[in-house]
């Protein structure tokens, strides 16, 4: 096989994974929220409603794509793509197992975060181009909160990088064969979880599309598959954030005290299970918590999370230095 073909196949695999994930996650969201809310969720399409999301995708594909008169047509058209493509790009560096990955990047962690940080531009563009005040407010909120929380999000994984000494995701997983980083790095994980929820626009930080305040935020004027892309990228983002969390703090495809040979054949399954458990927790939070206010969110970010993550970086650095000078010196 030519190298080009392999690259094309890998990209197709990423797209396929993303679409399949979207369909599964939407169904999962509906069922999880349904059962949290003492109701059943979708029940009519197929057994237990499993075909509901498929039908929804078909509906979105066949619906009329309405472009309101006053929108900035170019930006209105580009924005969903600009949200969708980075979400797709971020799949590249995620290791599903030792061999299952789209590409093995030495700066994989940084690359994933870099890809995710392009998304606010797309959201702001969508909000601005929609010629709708609610969309504008939603886009502004999305850009504001995501840019503000990039900082604590990156700072929260830095201690792990310092311990491992590599940005390669496979190396980070390999370093956790004995102990998951969530135990020694618990404060970093807490900061990561909060900042990650903000990055994902998830409840309790879903300011940008707060349905009770801003109708649907930046997505108000979108319809048909353009809306579908915005919607899908959101689920894809939560998958990526959960995958990064699993890789950095929960040992990726590995389970402690189980020999690598036993795990190897089922590694992707273990990884996916962990990721889905992470997503389940996000949905749990989504179905339970009220929304914080935008000023409270910003205060939490700048006044608490950033200082806390900086302090934790310093503590980790000191411990590493003491270890190098003391017990680890020999």
């Amino acid at each position, binding site marked *: 096989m030519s190298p080009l073909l392999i690259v094309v196949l890998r990209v197709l695999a990423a797209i396929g994974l993303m679409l399949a994930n979207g369909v599964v996650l939407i169904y999962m969201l509906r069922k999880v929220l349904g059962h949290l809310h003492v*109701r059943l969720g979708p029940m009519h399409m197929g057994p237990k409603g499993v075909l509901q999301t498929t039908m929804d995708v078909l509906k979105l594909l066949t619906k009329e794509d309405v472009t309101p008169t006053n929108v900035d047509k170019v930006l209105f058209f580009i924005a969903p793509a600009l949200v969708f493509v980075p979400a797709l790009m971020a799949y590249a560096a995620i290791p599903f197992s030792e061999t299952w990955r789209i590409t093995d990047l030495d700066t994989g962690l940084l690359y994933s975060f870099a890809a995710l940080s392009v998304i606010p531009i797309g959201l702001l563009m969508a909000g601005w181009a929609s010629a709708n005040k609610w969309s504008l407010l939603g886009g502004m909120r999305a850009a504001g909160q995501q840019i503000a929380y990039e900082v604590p999000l990156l700072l929260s994984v830095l201690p792990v990088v310092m311990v491992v000494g590599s940005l390669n995701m496979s190396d980070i997983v390999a370093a956790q064969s004995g102990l998951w980083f969530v135990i020694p790095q618990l404060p970093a994980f807490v900061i990561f979880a909060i900042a990650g929820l903000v990055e994902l626009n998830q409840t309790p930080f879903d300011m940008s599309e707060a349905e*009770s*305040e801003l109708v649907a935020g930046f997505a108000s004027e979108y319809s048909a598959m353009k809306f579908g892309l915005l919607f899908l990228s959101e689920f894809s983002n939560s998958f990526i954030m959960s995958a990064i969390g699993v890789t950095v703090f929960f040992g990726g495809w590995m389970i402690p005290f189980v020999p690598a040979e036993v795990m190897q054949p089922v590694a992707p399954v273990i990884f996916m299970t962990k990721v889905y458990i992470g997503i389940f927790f996000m949905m749990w939070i989504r179905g339970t918590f009220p929304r914080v206010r935008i000023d409270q969110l910003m205060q939490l970010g700048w006044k608490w999370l950033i200082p806390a993550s900086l302090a934790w970086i310093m503590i980790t650095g000191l411990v590493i230095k003491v270890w190098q000078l003391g017990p680890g010196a020999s």
Partner: protein
Amino acid sequence: MSDPRDDVISVGALAAEGTHSAGDPPAGIRRVPSGVDGLTTEHLIINMGPQHPSTHGVLRLLIEVDGEEVLAAETSLGYLHRGIEKLAESRKYHQLGTLMDRGDYVSGMHGEQAAALATEKLLEVTVPDKARYIRTLVAELTRLASHLVWYGTFGLDTGAMGQFLYAVRDREVLLDILEEISGQRMMFNYIRPGGVVADLPVGIEKKILDFLTDFDVHLEEHHALLGGNEIFQMRVKGIGTISREMALAFALSGANLRATGVGFDVRRDRPYDAYPDLDFDVPVGSTGDAWDRYMVRMEEMRQSVRMVRQCIEGMPEGDFTAKVPKVIRPAEGEVYASVESSRGETGVHLVSDGSPEPYRYHYRGPSLFACQVLEEILPGHLLADVVMMIGSLDIMLGEADR
């Protein structure tokens, strides 16, 4: 090139369309100057509603914002105006209840009760004891159902989806009970001048008591789900504070008034039906913010449960209605009767000219006054607080627009 600032319409300018001199504003009312300030931020006029998802029906707010901060707000009503007052002038007296059901459509019994009490005042009939107790019983059950809707939507307004359906689950049982009593889920038309339309069905007491046994637990669960949440407390504490003076100036009533520390309750201070016989407390708040309103309403639900129990225990024997002529022709006169509905003091001002139809029928909806105070408390808050405050005031547009 024209100054772009010319395009900015201010709500203040909208308000001053008719060029009457407004005079000095009274104490306690502030008018935030609108337009563009010295900085180069452009203010935005947002039209919130009547198709907005969380304006509780068809409330329309014109909000002037600087970024996220609300500078001025104007309430615009009338999207649900059906002319109930005019229609009542061509209805017979016993038909007034059907109109009141459609006023405050979430707590219909209270409207019917107000209309029936006003008619009885004109007729000077004595309502049998059993009818008084049945009325009080269904009124308190309706209050529970209505407060559960408020509780659920208040959570939705702050972004919490979880507790809404838990509240609706309890409300569903209540509506089933009310349906069994009256034959309808929300448009009851059960309370008529002179009494009620039918006796309680056999075995309903057990159903109600069974429900209350569950509800005692569920109510504390509801409180823990929403009120026990740190984020929710962060959102409501100290927000939307209404001072006592403002509450009196704007004639607030019900929980909105009591949250400011004024302990006026029609049930206690203008007793009607079986309330003089019942033992209940009137909860009051202290600061008048959204949290106090929440706590007062939650406590009201506990008191309603107490009252329902007392009504069932003390239910007397006897007739469920007094002898009232088929076509009611009250003497000429003018009366005012009010009840404590879920939202405040629902009053009926009735003028009779001796004919079978009311001459003038006026319906005082407490939500109309809550809508007014909204214009006053919104400035200075953030956009996210707007929906939260609409929820905390428990506005029902059916009775504001009538």
